[in-house]
């Protein structure tokens, strides 16, 4: 197993390296440059040239990339021109905020998705199944940013139960209850779609497993129905569901981009959107690298769990 993990991790290195090259090229190809973005109305060719020189952007693309790569390998991700602080500080702060949000969402969607899927499958075609299917389909179809605004309107503006934005209270606060209080709306919003997907998939997987011979054998041996469902069928169905949860982790990270914007969550998604529009190359580079590395790790983790659950893969 550890050899397998090491191999997978090694294989990720060229992927991440290629990614940095692509990001660099794309950022160089899209029109507009950071100096113009910073100067705005005052971007005369003369001012742009002077600022580019001060920012070190007058060097060739290859030179810039080599300098960046050399520094990066020594742990220096450079300084953001739009935030005037080290990229690594900003990225790490932002990424931990995203992890809190995405992690909570992933937990919510796994728990509720699995429960809903199992209940649906066990009581196939019952009233409960229909209600769950109906709710789940709505959940999958609703655009998350719209749902986010709706939740803000109902729970923050009208009922005033939850705050509309931010991660901690502006005045006082800063402890765990404060965080949970601010986390509630964005985490639920972000979890809704993934919950639906996991629920649907769990239902299908469970139905398939429940029809298999070993389940019939178990029932024939007189195993109680609960044990059949939870000990035998559910465990087998998980093998199909786990990789999907891994993929959902990626979607949750991606979905965080607009949920973070709607809820002003100080995460890496909203940071990347802003960095791209202001052409803050080093910040984009650092942010994308961290997100990509996380994505690779999530998928690896899902594969490992799957291997552990499914004896056929060992």
């Amino acid at each position, binding site marked *: 197993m550890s050899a397998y993990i090491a191999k997978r991790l090694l294989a990720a290195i060229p992927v991440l390296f290629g990614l940095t090259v692509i990001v660099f090229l794309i950022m160089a190809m899209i*029109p507009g440059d950071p100096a113009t973005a910073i100067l705005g109305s005052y971007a005369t060719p003369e001012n742009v040239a002077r600022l580019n020189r001060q920012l070190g952007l007058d060097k060739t693309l290859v030179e810039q990339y080599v300098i960046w790569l050399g520094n990066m390998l020594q742990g220096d991700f450079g300084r953001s021109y739009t935030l005037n602080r080290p990229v690594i500080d900003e990225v790490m702060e932002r990424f931990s905020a995203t992890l809190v949000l995405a992690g909570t969402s992933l937990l919510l969607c796994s728990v509720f998705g699995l429960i809903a899927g199992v209940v649906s499958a066990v009581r196939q075609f019952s009233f409960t199944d229909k209600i769950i299917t109906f709710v789940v389909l709505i959940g999958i179809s609703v655009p998350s940013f719209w749902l986010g605004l709706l939740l803000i309107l109902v729970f*923050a503006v009208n009922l005033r139960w939850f705050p*509309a934005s931010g991660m901690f209270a*502006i005045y006082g606060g800063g402890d765990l209850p404060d965080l*949970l209080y601010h986390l509630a709306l964005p985490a639920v919003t972000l979890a809704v779609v993934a919950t639906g997907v996991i629920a649907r998939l769990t239902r299908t997987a469970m139905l398939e497993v429940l029809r298999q011979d070993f389940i019939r054998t178990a029932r024939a041996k007189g195993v109680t129905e609960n044990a059949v469902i939870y000990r035998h069928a559910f465990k087998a169905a998980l093998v199909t569901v786990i990789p999907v949860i891994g993929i959902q982790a990626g979607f949750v990270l991606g979905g965080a981009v607009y949920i973070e914007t709607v809820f002003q969550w100080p995460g890496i998604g*909203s940071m990347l959107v802003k960095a791209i529009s202001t052409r803050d190359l080093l910040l984009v580079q650092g942010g994308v690298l961290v997100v990509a590395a996380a994505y690779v790790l999530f998928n690896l983790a899902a594969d490992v769990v799957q291997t552990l659950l499914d004896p056929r893969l060992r």
Partner: protein
Amino acid sequence: MKTLLATAMTIAALAFASPSLAQTPPNVLIVGQIAEPKSLDPHAVTAVNDFRILMNVYDGLVRYKDGTLEVESALAESWTISDDGTVYTFSLRDGITFHDGTPFNAEAVKFNFERMLDEDHPFHDTGPFPLAFFFSAVDTVTADDELTVEFKLKEPYAPFLSNLAYPTGLIVSPEAVKQYGKDFGRHPTGTGAYKFAEWDANAKVVVSRNEDYWDGAPSLEAVIYRPITDANTRIAEMLSGGLDIMVEVPPDSLQQFRSDDAFVVHEQAGPHLWFLILNAKEGPFAKKEIRQAANYAINKKALVDNILQGTAEVAAGPTPPAFAWAYNDGLSPYPYDPEKAKAMLQEAGYDGGEVTFYVTEGGSGMLDPVAMGTAIQADLEAVGMDVKIETYEWNTFLGKVNPGLEGKADLAEMAWMTNDPDTLPFLALRTGAWPDKGGFNSGYYSNPKVDELLEKARRATDQDERAGLYKEMQEIVREDAPWVFVANWKQNAVTKASVEDFKLQPSFFLMLQKVAKPQ
């Protein structure tokens, strides 16, 4: 299942139970900003969003008089200008200290400008200073004595004083720059009414009352700036009580705040112009009559009332009325007269050929550019012009428009916000400002008389004389119609009803020195 759900709901309800949302405390003002500040070093930033903090933490030698764009004394008590307009001598206010306790004096002023302008200055590397060219006319800065500082200019440059009132002219503590170096922008130290207290990245910037402020300590204990980039979220936060002031309210939401007694809506026209650049070098707009016809054809009143929902006023010429002293109030906007436009087009021999119109998706001061572009297209088509729109993201758009429209487009949207009546026409209407000469005259307008007036106005040090020159320029430009003059934006803000003595300024700076919020 049911039990499980019920348990989960109960736990959630218990964990999140909070009787009502905490209101903002008295004597602390919470301001909803549109973005995280880039830096709190006034010489390193360019965004109005950052200026809203800086103007309350620092002072300049001079500042804009309340409610105007005219310069008055601040850290400098008085000043004299030599007859040839090249030497400015300032007498500084005595007994002022920076927030770090170090004295404000002539040497400090000298340090500030040399850091920005002299590439060999030991602290020049704490930049870059993108707007340092505001002071590129400065040749030397000399500290004559403790409280006298002299600026020698390379040539007469009349906008110098109003540039000193701009955030790029704010004075920072030299000792703090020496102590923090490149990180000074995260440890701002000035002489202003509020002292920097805390910057919690992506959450808030806190500044607190400066008890020793030379112009009287403010009544507020602290101001907290919160960055909330999404406008809808900002509105929700304002409505749910988490903000005391919100700036840049989208037109759609103003009505909602107006009809609610808990809020007060503030509006103030500023030095902003929204216009269309016409390509005067080639194509139909090379003819003055066709450029004028476009000015008649576009229903500016409808744009301002319907699309901008009253958040702007119809513009009459190239200079915004907010520059009251330099504005020619004899000018009236081109009236909406499609019949006249049709007749002029026919007379000028317009052949119905297609014109390309550059529209942007958004950008600094561009208001609602896509909707505006579409409505303008409809107005021009109504008088028989065949208009093709090309839409670009802001930075791409600038990359296309700034090098000039030749060979690419016939008209383009544009907006400028400036601090002196010199800036926009000097950079965008002179022959010497054609793109190949490093300016922003992307439509290649050229009139030797306008060039002469603008050059002369820049050299004149007497405000009345300058005003006369600008007024004459505005008349000629209105007649020549190198642009379609569309709108002057009114900045807006919403405050809670409990906020007292708040006022927006024509400079678009957010001045909070006199604001109170006792409850």
